């Protein structure tokens, strides 16, 4: 039973990016800049997942994709938050954070965690940055008190999705390299099932956010 459940989660996770991606493409023109950034990121995430599947099919190590995806994801989400924090935090701050992260990620991939390994350090740092941004964004929303019902705001859903996903994945990202041996195969599978579940949560929340825009 549990095995089937895990199988379902894995299967669904592969296609979870689909609905928000379609919503993003469908209404791309009428989306504000922040929404467009999320849509572009979804497109990138979808393409990465597709290439990863293909490489997996041909039994080729696809972990280098994760190294590229991590930098792209962090960059796009920071760009998204630079729009969210406009008038609150200087946009250059986000650029500097991204550039620092980019340098760190490159150094990590070249010297510490090669392209055939999980880039857990970069993923961990990325998750921490996004968690801080998400908490900061809630603080900003509270201090502005502009939105009466936050659940009506697309940004609330994006932010909540990021906070839940990166909070839940922080330890998984950080510790995944410690369970690389053959003996941890089952454990690794369980952990990545958990990660797949939170990916579904993230993409569902992004889809809800984009759906809210459709109603505007």
């Amino acid at each position: 039973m549990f095995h089937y459940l895990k199988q379902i989660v894995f299967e669904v996770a592969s296609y979870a990016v689909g609905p928000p991606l379609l919503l993003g493409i469908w209404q791309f023109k009428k989306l504000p800049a922040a929404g467009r950034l999320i849509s572009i990121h979804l497109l990138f995430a979808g393409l990465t997942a597709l290439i990863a599947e293909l490489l997996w099919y041909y039994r080729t190590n696809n972990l280098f994709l994760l190294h590229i995806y991590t930098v792209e994801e962090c960059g796009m989400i920071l760009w998204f938050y630079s729009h969210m924090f406009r008038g609150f935090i200087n946009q250059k701050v986000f650029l500097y954070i991204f550039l620092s992260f980019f340098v760190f990620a490159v150094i990590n991939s070249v010297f510490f965690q090669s392209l055939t390994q999980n880039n857990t350090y970069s993923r961990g740092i990325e998750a921490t940055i996004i968690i801080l941004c998400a908490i900061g964004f809630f603080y900003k929303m509270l201090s502005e008190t502009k939105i009466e019902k936050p659940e009506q705001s697309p940004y609330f859903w994006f932010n909540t999705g990021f906070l839940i996903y990166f909070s839940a994945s922080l330890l998984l990202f950080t510790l995944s390299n410690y369970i690389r041996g053959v003996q941890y195969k089952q454990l690794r599978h369980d952990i990545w099932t958990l990660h797949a579940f939170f990916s579904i949560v993230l993409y569902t929340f992004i889809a809800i956010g984009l759906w809210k825009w459709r109603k505007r």
Partner: protein
Amino acid sequence: MEMAKEVDIFFFLFAGTLGMITLAGGVIAFFMVYQRRLMRKQGELHEMEMKHKEELLYSNIEMLENERKRIAKDLHDDIGHVFSTLSWRLRQLDANSGKEEIATILKDAQDLISTGVHSVKTITHDMVPYGFEIFGLITAIQNLCDRAMASGVLDINFEYTDSMSSLSDDACLNIYRIIQELISNTIKYAAASRIDIQLAATPNVLVLNYNDNGKGFITEEGIKKRKGYGLSNIESRIHMLGARHTYTTAPGKGVQVEIIIPIKDEHGANNHTGSSGG
């Protein structure tokens, strides 16, 4: 052994992830609850503000209506009376009227016209203070003080810095009306023997200090009671000026009012000091 280690890592990861999720959930729940509470508070504040604005609006309308009634009454009682008497006197003139009678009627008519002119001046003076447009705010306040002191029971000391030129006519008229209302309240309710008025201008603000040595009142009760007696009028004018005010009073301690009026003009104030009355 390996199995035990795997279970350890799994539980560590599971518990850690659960902990992180709980924290994230806590942040989101806190945000939702706090946001709703903040919005509710803001709504209440907004409602109170709207209610206050509504009260000020009603007070303005009432003030306007009272002013219209007063003008109508003055026109009816003074000017109307003058014209009806004049008309009655002139109707007494006919071809058979003697020279002496004509002279008397014309003299009466002349007197009535003088009375009418005087009445018109008095009525218009109440609408816009005499000399206000030509001589400015200071002279108008000085005249106001002189008239209030004419009874001999009240001593008014008016001090000012000579820099009112940067204020608009509307602002000056509002300041004049506020002082007029304050003096009127002192005369009506305070049983005071002395009033001190200071108008001090700085480059950015004009500070009006008004003190009387009357019987004062308990602030909140008195303010509520007197809302209908001109305090609303003062408050709505303060609002129009975009000014801040503090009202300090206690039984037996007189009334002290400080009104800080922003000066929108960018030119600096010219602080020559003058004084009047006292």
